[in-house]
């Protein structure tokens, strides 16, 4: 990154962040991340044992440098909790984060330094901005916290506004309620970039926007990624958007990772039954192949009491008896893909049919 840095800059910057591990080193390594929430009200005298929501239950994955990693899943699968755990906004119960080879929270990478390198854009564009602060003050807050003098921070804020497509002279002195949703989200992106992070977590960042605005913001994100050498973790429930923007995709279900793979592979040839059903749930736009029935029945089960064994087996069309007894592990499936399903795990007692679970017909939509 030091090679591509601009030669002249008219204002002082924050100290630049070196690329320590080199291009092969994953930017962020997540191992065994867990977070459970205890429910308060369910304690009955004598019944004992408090109910626990296993929001994130032991996930492992890597985020590679300069990639866009998409995360999909239904409501309650733990995507947002994962994002907040990565940001250290919530404390994990277990697990380890290694950023560019250094353990987060260790002496070589204290939390404050980590926070300069990872930033987040939230879903609710209005709630993420202090209603009493002007746009430029909101953006300048981060740099000022890290030592940039006020004047320089304001100039930087204005530069960023220009970069995300908002004319500084018109917008810098405005308050959040004076902007539209799309404009606010651009501000949030500018604010996230103010600290020159290397990893940007986008938690449903475009979900609340109108489609046309969404497209603009997505294009902006792609431009910014190229320009600033960013890595993205893109969380969304909108499958089409994830497909458009992601290099690789993660699928989560009830707090667990159930499939990982390249975006192209995952969307064309989904391995896990849940992924297949999810992709088939999108209403078809091809009049010759109409979606007759919903492939995924019912609501996601209660995260407080997950089903035994494979958590998806209650809704799985290919479930067998062994699925309720045994929890599948995430196994390699070639080409960087991994899937957690007994059908792909040898010697588990799952009787697979000859062609495996790969769909006979390609997914339409």
């Amino acid at each position, binding site marked *: 990154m030091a090679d591509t840095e*601009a030669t002249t800059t008219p204002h002082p910057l924050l100290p630049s962040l070196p690329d320590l591990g080199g291009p092969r080193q994953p930017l962020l390594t997540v191992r065994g991340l867990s977070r459970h929430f205890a429910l308060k009200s369910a304690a009955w005298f004598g019944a004992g044992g408090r109910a626990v929501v296993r929001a994130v239950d032991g996930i492992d994955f890597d985020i590679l440098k300069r990639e866009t990693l998409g995360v999909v899943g239904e409501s309650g699968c733990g995507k947002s909790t994962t994002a907040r755990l990565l940001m250290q*906004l919530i404390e994990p119960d277990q697990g380890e984060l290694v950023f560019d080879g250094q353990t987060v929270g260790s002496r070589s990478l204290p939390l404050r330094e980590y926070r300069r390198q990872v930033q987040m854009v*939230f879903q609710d564009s209005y709630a993420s901005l202090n209603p009493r602060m002007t746009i430029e003050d909101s953006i300048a*807050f981060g740099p000022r916290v890290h030592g940039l003098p006020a004047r320089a921070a304001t100039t930087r804020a204005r530069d960023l506004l220009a970069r995300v497509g908002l004319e500084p*002279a018109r917008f*810098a*002195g405005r308050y959040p309620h004076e902007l539209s949703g799309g404009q606010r989200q651009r501000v949030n992106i500018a604010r996230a970039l103010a600290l020159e992070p290397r990893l940007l977590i986008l938690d449903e960042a475009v979900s609340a926007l109108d489609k046309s605005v969404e497209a603009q913001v997505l294009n902006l994100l792609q431009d910014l990624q190229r320009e600033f050498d960013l890595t993205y973790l893109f969380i969304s429930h909108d499958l089409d958007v994830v497909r458009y923007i992601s290099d690789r995709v993660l699928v989560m279900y009830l707090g667990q990772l159930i499939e990982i793979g390249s975006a192209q592979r995952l969307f064309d040839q989904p391995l896990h039954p849940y992924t297949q059903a999810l992709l088939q749930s999108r209403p078809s736009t091809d009049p010759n192949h109409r979606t007759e029935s919903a492939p995924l029945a019912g609501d996601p089960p209660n995260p407080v009491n997950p089903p035994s064994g494979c958590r998806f087996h209650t809704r799985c069309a290919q479930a067998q008896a062994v699925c309720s007894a045994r929890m599948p592990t995430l196994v390699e499936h070639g080409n960087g893909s991994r899937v957690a399903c007994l059908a792909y795990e040898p010697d588990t007692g799952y009787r697979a049919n000859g062609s495996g679970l790969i769909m006979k017909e390609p997914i339409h939509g």
Partner: protein
Amino acid sequence: MLVTSPDAAAAATPPDAAYVRSRGHAANVVRKLLRNPIAMGAAAVILLLIVVAVAAPWLTPADPFETSMFHRLSPIGTPGSPLGTDELGRDLLSRLMLGGRLSLFMGIVPVLLAFFIASALGILAGYAGGLTNSAIMRTIDVLYAFPSVLLAIALSGALGAGIVNALTSLTVVFIPQIARVAESVTTQVRRSDYVDAARASGASPFAIVRVHVLGNVIGPIFVYATSLISVSMILASGLSFLGLGVTPPQPEWGLMLNTLRTAIYVQPALAALPGVLIFITSIAFNLFSDGLRAAMEVK
């Protein structure tokens, strides 16, 4: 890294004068308030009362302390004493003007003191959460378990008469109420995404409270506190009425109500006069406070 060349930088950053700066929240509140006739009327009354109270020693037509047994309880309209004289022959108008000083003082100061102390406690409890919150708020709950009149009287009764004692007990009465509001508002703000974003940028809790939390909570707390001023006035004058608080011969509206009680049958209008002033002041503060709350409502 952010800007590709000095020329682009110059083009992207117009001179300061070109920057539009929107009206801040405070300015908006003031504007809305100015457009509210009731609130403005109330504000005018309050201003008038304060001015008269402050300037009283120079404005009083007669000596508020000069007694005259000969002219006791003269009715309203007596030449030389337009509002009559009290039970010791002192000119009532002058005593009412001077009495306003203490009455207003006892109305505003306890609330002001409680505002600062309780805001600090409430914001600390609200932001810190957990054990700190429990410790502070449970202690406050004990005070809150008393009806405010009772608490004021209990403390004043134990401490004895006197202005300082009354101020102390009134401040203690208002602290729990304001602290509760402060804690509640701070907890709400604490949960918002922008505070999370501020945490995510690595700021210390102190910086976050100073920059993000304070601006958003002070408003509602302040509005609530202003609604307590009239209560404080009534409580303070009530204490004087009972013989706590202000002691004779200091003029204070509540005290005057007490001493004039004997005149109910002889000069009823006279006896009611100090209460009229308490009533007017109280209404004015309440209407202003209501107007302030309405002006602060987020669109």
